[in-house]
């Protein structure tokens, strides 16, 4: 592999890993917020019921 091959390998791994982590964080946030909204709506339903 020539110099550019190593450079592209390093840049490819770094930016792919960071993009995957970012997407994963967004997914975790959506999941947690959806669960929280579900609990809050259930709580309200119980309170008003």
């Amino acid at each position, binding site marked *: 592999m*020539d*110099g550019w091959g190593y450079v592209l*390998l*390093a840049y490819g791994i770094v930016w792919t890993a960071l993009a995957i982590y*970012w997407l994963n*964080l967004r997914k975790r*946030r959506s999941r947690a917020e959806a669960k929280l909204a579900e609990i809050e709506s259930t709580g309200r339903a119980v309170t008003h019921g």
Partner: protein
Amino acid sequence: MTVTEPKRRRGILGLLALVFILAGLYFGLVKAPPDAYQGDVQRIMYLHIPSILTAYLSFFIVFVGSCLYLWKRERRDDILARSAAEIGVLFTALTIVEGSIWGRPTWGVWWTWDARLTLTAVLLMIFAGYLMLRSLIEDEERGAVAGAILGIIGFLDIPLIHMSVYWWRTLHQPPSILRPDKAPWENIHPAMLIALAVNFIAFLLLYFYLLSLRMRVGESEAKVQRAILEGAA
């Protein structure tokens, strides 16, 4: 639906990070000249140096968050420490991968048990252990205290990593830019220094964006847990 102020600030930070990442790619891959000795492989340094400095910053935040948690017992400090530990582990792992890819054509090996490399691997193990510990202890309070103690001890590895190139005869070179005898612009080509600075700013902006997002995840998860506990009581 209205956009909340923290969400808007996070969006601006993310956008700024993206602009600097693209600028960093341009300066690092196009504008900066190849190194006289290493050739194009040296361009990996525009990722490697910002990655490890960001990881150090992240573990410093773990250290501060852990100290504050042990002192005040506020949940927010623990969320800060835990979030910073997770991102710090990612940046440390990336630093090792980048260093390994750079080392193969430059040193002739993917890995060597050099003092700085070994201590960086130890740092990664300590904080990977921190994350495992946090996920294994179910009691949040106990987990937070154990994590805070490990976070403080783990941070002490960083001065050792920094000084290792002076204390031992290592394959890893001492600092090339931040040297006591010369100003940074006297050590490397200005175009290389600009590429490094732009990439460092990009990593810092990305880091604070990810930290803000990770803390939001932690806060939401904590609220869910509290609501479940209150419901069970």
